[in-house]
């Protein structure tokens, strides 16, 4: 029998027992629909995240941190370099000693890009300053290297004030994908501009609907930081007493006992303890506010999904003024200051103002991030790569999809049992027909194939129907999600995707399960004894 004969025969037999075939196919349709809709959710989420990463250029973005501080810088996602140089014998060097590193970088490109060699050389810790940025920019595959600072700020727009975060970036960063999705207005064009970009997330926070973000352009915002300083602490320690309290304090002193060394010792201890308490009190609680009034130049996409893009983007000058104003007291800022070798609260404008807590690299799309990462780490820095992170996310999605797929597979196994039942019933009804076919010359494999094609056809038709029904379910769910999100003024997002691989897998599994389910009935049909089957009852 040819394949065409087998297909025609299978279609004819299924058509004859329409109701039974329809019910069996329905079982497969439901199972495949469940399988498709569940995996479609996983695929949709993965695709959305991938598109988001792509649109923001995150696959070609890498963060660089000073060695040993990466884990503190990005919510614990930092990656320790293989040639870590934070061991005791590491030497911290001054910027003036960078010449040797430049020489190393320029005359030994191969060693920079060869982590195996880099591992064998002790690299000194170098500060993440403008010289380092120049070195980073020279690494093959790096299009742009620019520093950025994150700040915890308060933002006032008209009469609304809320807590937010800001990032100061140079205007050169606007050439990268991350800042390319302008929704309204434009980017500012000077590192000293008293302008800011805000995100759609900021607009929502400020109570502005997404369809009217244009109204924000040109408006003024006050970006302020509350800082504490050693000055305020010392002032409070020395002078934070009113006259009456000083009078009663002096009255309480026993001047005649000042000659007694034990009394003097107790008095000194008490006074120093009080001064220390007032110092700490002043350091932690006496805040000063420092504000920048800026004009909103543009609104950019982002800021709604995590903190990849900060709600407020500042010029380098504004950022520097706000960060130099003092220590905000936040844990993150404390680490930032310490990482840069600064004492929190110390005015750093005159000391190591050139040092940055992190640098962003915009990478060439064609260069593997691994080679750039190795080159950066060979220079003694730590890195965080979104591309690497995405690989980890994909692993999570793989397990997520497997779990969803297993649920769908349980339904498919049940549908498979339905196929077995239908086919066994069919054999009982068609015993004589099998006997006739054997008397006409059909061999065991012909009979087996006939039944396998029938069960395979049930699976194929069920799989095609299931894929369609699954798609309908995801469209329905997507519409409901859209409606809900728009009612909450949240921009719509696609939760489901039906990529070609999912269609092929769903069809393949539907066919595979049905053929497996048909194996036992087919084998039973092949064993029918023609003499018994043709016997006249």
């Amino acid at each position, binding site marked *: 029998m040819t394949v065409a004969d087998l297909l025609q025969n299978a279609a004819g037999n299924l058509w004859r027992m329409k109701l039974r075939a329809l019910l069996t196919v329905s079982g497969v349709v439901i199972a495949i629909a469940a399988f498709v809709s569940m995996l479609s959710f996983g695929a949709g989420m993965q695709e959305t995240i991938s598109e988001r990463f792509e649109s923001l250029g995150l696959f070609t973005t890498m963060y660089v941190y000073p060695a040993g501080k990466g884990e503190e810088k990005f919510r614990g996602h930092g990656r320790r370099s293989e040639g870590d140089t934070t061991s005791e014998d590491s030497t911290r060097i001054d910027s003036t000693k960078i010449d040797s590193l430049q020489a190393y970088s320029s005359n030994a490109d191969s060693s920079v890009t060869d982590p195996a060699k880099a591992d064998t050389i002790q690299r000194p810790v170098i500060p993440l300053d403008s010289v380092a940025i120049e070195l980073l920019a020279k690494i093959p595959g790096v299009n742009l290297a620019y520093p950025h600072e994150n700040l915890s700020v308060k933002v006032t727009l008209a009469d609304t004030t809320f807590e937010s975060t800001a990032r100061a970036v140079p205007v050169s960063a606007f050439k990268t994908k991350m800042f390319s999705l302008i929704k309204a207005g434009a980017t500012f064009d000077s590192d000293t501009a008293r302008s800011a970009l805000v995100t759609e997330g900021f607009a929502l926070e400020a109570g502005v609907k997404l369809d009217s973000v244009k109204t924000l352009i040109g408006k003024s915002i006050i970006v302020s930081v509350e800082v504490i300083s050693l000055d305020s602490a010392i002032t409070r320690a020395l002078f934070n007493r009113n006259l009456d309290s000083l009078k009663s304090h002096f009255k309480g002193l026993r001047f005649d006992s000042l000659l007694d060394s034990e009394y003097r010792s107790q008095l000194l201890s008490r006074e120093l303890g009080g001064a220390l308490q007032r110092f700490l009190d002043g350091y932690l609680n006496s805040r000063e506010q420092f504000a920048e009034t800026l004009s909103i130049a543009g609104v950019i996409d982002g800021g709604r999904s995590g903190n990849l893009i900060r709600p407020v983007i500042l010029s380098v000058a504004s950022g520097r003024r706000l960060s130099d104003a003092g220590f905000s007291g936040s844990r993150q800022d404390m680490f930032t200051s310490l990482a840069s070798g600064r004492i929190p609260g110390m005015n750093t404008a005159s000391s190591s103002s050139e040092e940055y807590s992190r640098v962003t690299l915009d990478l060439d799309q064609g260069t593997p991030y691994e080679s750039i990462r190795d080159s950066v780490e060979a220079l003694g820095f730590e890195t965080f790569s979104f591309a690497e992170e995405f690989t980890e996310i994909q692993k999570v999605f793989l397990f997520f999809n497997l779990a969803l797929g297993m649920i769908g597979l349980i339904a498919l196994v049940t549908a498979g049992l339905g196929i077995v039942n239908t086919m066994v019933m069919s054999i009982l009804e068609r015993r004589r027909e099998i006997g006739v076919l*054997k008397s006409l*010359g059909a061999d065991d494999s012909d009979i087996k194939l006939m039944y396998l094609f029938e069960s395979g056809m049930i699976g194929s038709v069920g799989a095609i129907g299931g894929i369609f029904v699954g798609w309908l379910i995801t469209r329905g769910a997507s519409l409901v999600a859209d409606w809900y999100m728009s009612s909450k003024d949240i921009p719509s997002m696609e939760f489901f995707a039906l990529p070609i691989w999912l269609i092929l897998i769903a069809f393949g599994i539907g066919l595979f399960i049905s053929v497996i389910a048909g194996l036992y009935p087919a084998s039973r049909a092949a064993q029918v004894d*023609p003499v018994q089957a043709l016997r*006249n009852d």
Partner: protein
Amino acid sequence: METGSGLTPDDSWLQAVGLSRYYIRGPQEVRALDGVDLDVSRGEFLALVGSSGSGKSTLLNLLAGLDTPTAGKILVDGEQLDTFSRKRLSRYRARQIGMVFQSFNLISHKTALENVETALYFNDTPKPERRKLATDMLTHLGLAERLDHRPADLSGGEQQRVALARALVKRPQILFADEPTGNLDRENTIQIAETLKSFNRDGITIVMVTHDGDLAESCATRIVRMDYGKIVSDTPAGAGK
């Protein structure tokens, strides 16, 4: 035992030697066929006659390769049939023999044409040729107007002619007919008998099982009588008259 073929062993195409077929029915062994020797020559029209349970249908099934003997051997053109693999046995049934049954055994959901075409599925006849051969055969048997009729829409005689067309469309060397007229009236019996004789004249060897002595006498060239699983007589047709 008298041999009615009148042919030398060299002429025999199909041979049964000491053929036995036993069945176990509960504690008892039933000897459906018990040491039968039979030679069938090319071009013969052999009628196996006997009462019910005499073993004639069992012998037919064994010769057709549908059943396997308990003892003895079957030789087809010098090759031992009972040693054939299942696949080779299928090929033997597909290419060398045709079978007709008392109850027609047509596939009820297929038309007359499709039923006849089915016989050509298994002997590698190309698909376009199948339809033509089936149509020609049905037309030859006077069923040109019944090609698209299903068995339920045909009379008993017509159904048996469709069954004959299905058996003969692949031009078998030998036709095994098991009570081909058992379910037919006199008129249809005569018609089927004439058809069988006509194909026999065209060179097809026929082995027909029947309990109708008159039918055997009217169309067979040799009559083998069986009883209790053994051949009791083997005579040329007309010898008893």
